[in-house]
């Protein structure tokens, strides 16, 4: 049995009807509602079951279960389970011994390794879960997920010499680009809106592939209103998690602000979902947890003049217009989901690591080679 085959078999354990692993995940993962956990993990493990052997063939054709090559440390963030599981899988395919530091309170890495041990104890033995900082600082390769500050610190501490390598996965945002005017039929529009609502609601918008804004060509207000209806529908089936006070306060603040600056459609008596129509600014960060902006696409395609940007960079006193421009700069993008636009036009409008159809933004394939996970080849090469 190859590593890929063992991992595929493990994924199938999770997908079995009445899987005890899935039941434990639904019980132990508290950052999301149980229905959201089940839906998200089903999609993750279905993808793994389908593609891990192909990934092994493409990126690690000579991987074996003997003689681990090197230590790879994985410092995981707990925002959602997928990146951590995929990171461990990539490390195993690279034939490495993996030292994993899960995020505080995240049970998923331990559950996955335990399920892997049921299929292949030797392979599972190549994963050590630890909070011991020294254990992962000794690793030759570090793969880390988290905020910019964490990455900077880890990178600084880890760069001992040229033989060490660091792969950091930090802040990114995602957007959707929708040519709403191309979808004239009711059925077409329904499918499109359902796809957008799914992208904006899945995993409570916690991942970097979650769209924070849809830029719309055509009637942006009609799109926003329809999106709100479908986000409400999604929430009825896969409800959002109960939020800590700070996150709920951030949504309340943002709703209040955007009620003033634009138009807001929102769940009543809760912060479960929010759609804010903004027809003024190119960008503002979402407080997440199913808070999505809708903007006319013209706001994205209008560029700031270079002189304005130079003035701002030089620290000169800004005019009202300049101040607005600064607040509108797009952040680095992870994923652009699109509908109704030709790919060439999409790439001209927004540069990102990944482009996909609307509705697929939160379903990155394991075979995706750039941006969201370390490449097996990189880990083999570095070790």
């Amino acid at each position: 049995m190859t590593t890929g085959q063992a991992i595929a078999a493990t994924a199938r354990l999770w997908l079995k009807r009445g899987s005890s692993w899935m039941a434990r995940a639904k019980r132990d993962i508290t950052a999301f509602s149980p229905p959201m956990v089940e839906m998200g993990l089903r999609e993750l493990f279905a993808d793994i079951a389908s593609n891990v052997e192909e990934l092994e063939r493409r990126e690690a054709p000579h991987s074996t279960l003997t003689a681990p090559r090197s230590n790879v440390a994985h410092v995981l963030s707990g925002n959602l389970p997928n990146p951590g599981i995929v990171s461990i899988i990539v490390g195993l395919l690279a034939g490495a011994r993996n030292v994993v530091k899960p995020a505080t309170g995240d049970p998923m890495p331990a559950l996955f390794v335990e399920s892997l041990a049921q299929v292949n104890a030797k392979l599972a033995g190549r994963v050590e879960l630890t909070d011991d900082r020294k254990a992962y600082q000794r690793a030759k390769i570090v793969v880390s997920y988290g905020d910019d500050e964490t990455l900077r610190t880890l990178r600084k501490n880890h760069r001992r010499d040229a033989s060490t390598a660091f792969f950091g996965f930090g802040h990114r945002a995602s957007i959707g680009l929708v040519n709403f005017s191309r979808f004239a039929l009711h059925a077409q529009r329904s499918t499109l809106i359902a796809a957008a609502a799914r992208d904006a609601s899945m995993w409570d918008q916690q991942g970097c592939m979650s769209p924070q804004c849809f830029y719309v060509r055509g009637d942006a207000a009609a799109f926003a209103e329809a999106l709100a209806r479908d986000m409400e529908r999604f929430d009825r089936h896969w409800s959002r998690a109960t939020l800590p006070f700070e996150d709920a306060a951030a949504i309340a603040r943002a709703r209040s602000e955007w009620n003033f600056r634009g138009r807001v459609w929102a769940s009543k008596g809760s912060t479960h979902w929010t759609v804010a129509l903004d027809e003024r600014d190119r960008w503002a960060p979402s407080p997440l947890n199913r808070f999505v902006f809708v903007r006319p696409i013209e706001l994205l395609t209008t560029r700031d003049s270079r002189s304005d940007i130079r003035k701002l960079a030089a620290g000169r006193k800004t005019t009202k217009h300049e101040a607005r421009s600064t607040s509108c700069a797009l952040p680095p993008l992870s994923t652009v989901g699109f509908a109704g636009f030709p790919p060439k036009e999409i790439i001209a409008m927004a540069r990102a690591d990944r482009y996909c159809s609307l509705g697929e933004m939160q379903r990155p394939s394991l075979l995706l080679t750039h941006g969201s996970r370390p490449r097996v080849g990189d880990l083999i090469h570095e070790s």
Partner: protein
Amino acid sequence: MKTARKKTHPSISKPPPAGELDARILDFIARGVERRVTDAEFNALALAMFSRQFALNGPYRRYCESLDRSPRSVAHWTQIPAAPTAAFKDAELTTLRPAERTAVFHSSGTTEHRPSRHFHNAATLALYEAALWPMFQSRMGLLPVPSSSMDKRDGCSTLVILTPAPSEAPHSSLVHMMETVRRQLSAPHSAFVDVAVLEDGRALAKAIQFAIRNLQSAILLLGTAIAFVRLLNAINSLPLPSGAHVMETGGYKGRGREVPREKLHAQISAKLGVERLDIISEYGMCELSSQFYTRPTVHAPRSAVFTGPPWTRSMVVDPETGREAREGGRGLIRIFDLANRGSVLAIQTEDVGVRRGDGFELLGRAPQAEARGCSLMVAS
């Protein structure tokens, strides 16, 4: 689903004139800060003022319409839509025509490109000044004596203000408040320390030492939290004459080290020799016209509960449900201030508090949600 729908309301009845509203507010103020305004009295004036603000404040009216609220649908002051403080940055939230505006207060902060703007004319500024004095006087334990005699009385207060002078900060509502207090007490302009020393704790200490030399009367020391932190960091001990009162206010605006309020007051007490009962905190902002104060008592000398004058109300709103938090519950602070006649009487702040009776305990600014990451940023 709560929807946003822009509506054109049928024209509402003519709003009450400003002069009539001002007279009613001034009547509340004249009753003093210890006499309660009944809910019915507060409600009647709040609804009248909402009617005027809805009619004359365009951006606010559009906001209310987006929430499906108007004077026709609002029956109680708690239903009046609260404008977020951030809206004062975006829009001119005022009932005053441009030609009428004689003063504007800006929010402070070093990193803000767009400060909040609260416009005033002579009448609303007079309301502002009338509203601030009785609360200040009451909470600082000052005797209600005519201001003209204050500087002539034996044992009257000597004022030291650790903020810039009005000429240095003409758009600061806090400085305007301090200046109003200075005028009420007939204190000299030199009550304001020189702006150059505000950044330097040692220089602040020297300025205070200079002010209290040969002092026979009590001292009122007023300043921002950051000024007190700088002062306290620079001194081991600077005992103030007995009877001193201290008022600290404001956040740190991203400058300097944050010191929890309790610790700051303990240090003030220890290093300046001021009784805890005589140290109070003030809560105000440029978007408001009235202030809230803590009120230490013998039984609760460290009370951190802010309460306002009778012409205000505060609510602590649970951000998840939008409803008022239960007693002891956390939420976002919402203020209803009848002295805010020229702008919006209901203000949704970005501050988090705990509901304590008809006041609140201030916890600080609500944090922004952090971005989440899982996409390749750095490889080395």
